[in-house]
């Protein structure tokens, strides 16, 4: 089945692998290539693979300005989050049992925190403000002597809002608590300088930045030193923090993707900012449209919009030639609308009506223009079908209606 006619606007979910990255990865698979085990110390196959892995480690470190020895390869950001949160909490549990995170974190952070609660840790889940930002002052008022770890995401994956990790890092450092940041959505979108900010652990993903799926990394600070209990044992790879034969081609792919991101970040961002601006201008011409998140404090590649009186999943179905995500209940197995949008205090119906558009390196002007045309048309048609829209036009305040809820 060809998907070529479908416009892809779901880059925050995953990105295609940049062809330059894919061709680099190909060099590390076949008999003609460097297929060796990087842990093999006794022959050139191993040495060559090890060299490639270390070069990739440098590329990742360069993008975020840290020492390559502070980068630990993992299977992705989910594993990096798990390793950071469970690893640090368990290692330092004699120092305290309190953890702070937020209600708008990715499940890869929330679920490990839930697991730690089952192990006896006490977790505080901070509320965001109505724009989806976790304020440093909220962290400051929640932090205690017993707080071992604070885990706050850099950029929210549904809204694109940016948290002030520099300020939060100052608070955690003053308190002697470790600070973990999920930066899966950040690489190639905003500058990160780990030498300047007090972040102790940071999770990265390759496939959100034009690298392959199945590879990520955890930054683990050396000075002041952060220690953690490994989740996977066997062989002592990655200085004992993550055992398992290194996936050379995946690692090389991540390295190359991050090298390109470093070089082309400005170029990508300029292009995407123009799309964002155009999209906003056009969408605002549709009545009763709400932008979720903080327009003054977000990345331009993610745009989360609620189209009132239209249900998000039907909108996605109507936009059949456009690949986007919805905060609507129906797209998830749980039938619950997006917990992120609910955490903002949005009415459930607006959460049900939300769509996330996310742009990327391979988005074209045509993609954006065609999407805007189709979008206006489908919203119009679905509203013609919507009893809520009809009631709204009749001047009925929907908040005063007594619904026969199921």
């Amino acid at each position: 089945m060809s998907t070529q006619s479908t416009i892809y606007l779901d880059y925050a979910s995953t990105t295609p692998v940049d062809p330059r990255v894919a061709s680099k990865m190909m060099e590390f698979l076949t008999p003609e290539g460097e297929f060796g085990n990087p842990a093999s110390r006794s022959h050139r196959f191993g040495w060559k693979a090890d060299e490639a892995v270390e070069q990739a480690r440098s590329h990742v470190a360069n993008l975020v300005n840290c020492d390559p020895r502070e980068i630990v390869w993992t299977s992705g950001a989910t594993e990096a989050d798990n390793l950071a949160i469970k690893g640090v909490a368990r290692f330092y549990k004699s120092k305290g049992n309190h953890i702070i995170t937020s209600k708008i974190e990715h499940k890869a952070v929330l679920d490990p925190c839930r697991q730690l609660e089952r192990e006896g840790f006490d977790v505080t889940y901070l509320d965001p403000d109505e724009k989806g930002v976790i304020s440093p002052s909220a962290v400051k008022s929640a932090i205690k002597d017993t707080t071992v770890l604070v885990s706050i995401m850099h950029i929210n994956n549904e809204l694109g809002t940016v948290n002030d990790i520099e300020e939060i890092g100052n608070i955690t450092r003053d308190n002697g608590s470790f600070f973990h940041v999920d930066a899966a959505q950040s690489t190639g979108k905003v500058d990160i300088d780990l030498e300047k900010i007090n972040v102790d652990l940071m999770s990265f993903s390759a496939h959100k930045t034009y690298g392959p799926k199945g590879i990520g990394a955890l930054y683990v600070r050396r000075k002041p030193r952060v220690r953690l209990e490994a989740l996977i044992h066997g062989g002592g790879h990655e200085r004992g923090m993550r055992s398992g034969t290194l996936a050379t081609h995946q690692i090389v792919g991540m390295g190359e993707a991050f090298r390109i991101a470093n070089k082309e970040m400005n170029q990508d961002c300029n292009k995407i900012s123009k799309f964002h601006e155009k999209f906003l201008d056009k969408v605002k011409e549709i009545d009763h449209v709400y932008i979720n998140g903080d327009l003054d404090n977000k990345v331009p590649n993610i745009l989360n919009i609620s189209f009132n009186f239209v249900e998000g999943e039907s909108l996605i179905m109507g936009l059949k030639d456009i690949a986007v995500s919805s905060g609507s209940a129906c797209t998830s197995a749980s039938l619950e609308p997006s917990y992120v949008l609910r955490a903002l205090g949005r009415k459930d119906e607006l959460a049900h009506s939300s769509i996330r558009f996310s742009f990327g390196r391979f988005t074209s002007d045509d993609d954006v223009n065609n999407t805007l045309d189709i979008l206006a048309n489908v919203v119009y048609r679905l509203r013609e079908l919507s009893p809520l829209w009809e009631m709204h036009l009749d001047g009925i305040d929907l908040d005063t209606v007594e619904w026969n809820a199921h």
Partner: protein
Amino acid sequence: MAYSKKVVEKFENTLNNPEAFKVGRFDPKDSDVGTGMVGAPACGDVMKLQIKCEPKGNTHVIKDVKFKTYGCGSAIASSSELVEMLIGKTLEEAKSIKNIEIAKALELPPIKIHCSVLAEDSIKQAIEDYETKQ
């Protein structure tokens, strides 16, 4: 979520050709019109179904139907499917329509069965409204 072909077809046809698929409204105050509305915006679906009936023998027959639905693709397809089943039926026949018939016709997955339940409830309510007017 992957949809059955039938849901997608029904949804798209309804969206692209609303009049032919009975999207619209009757005046709810008319004595030959019964209106049913079920669901809630906060739950993600609201169905409004209206029937226009006429007496026939010692019963009443559904002459025409109009509907509007806010909800997921399956909810919209379910209402559209129900509407098709209703025209020409007596009220007794319409009352006996079960959600499972709609679910089967559209091959709804278990997680979407509630859409067909909503459709069943909307016709029951519309008939009740009509009957109280007679």
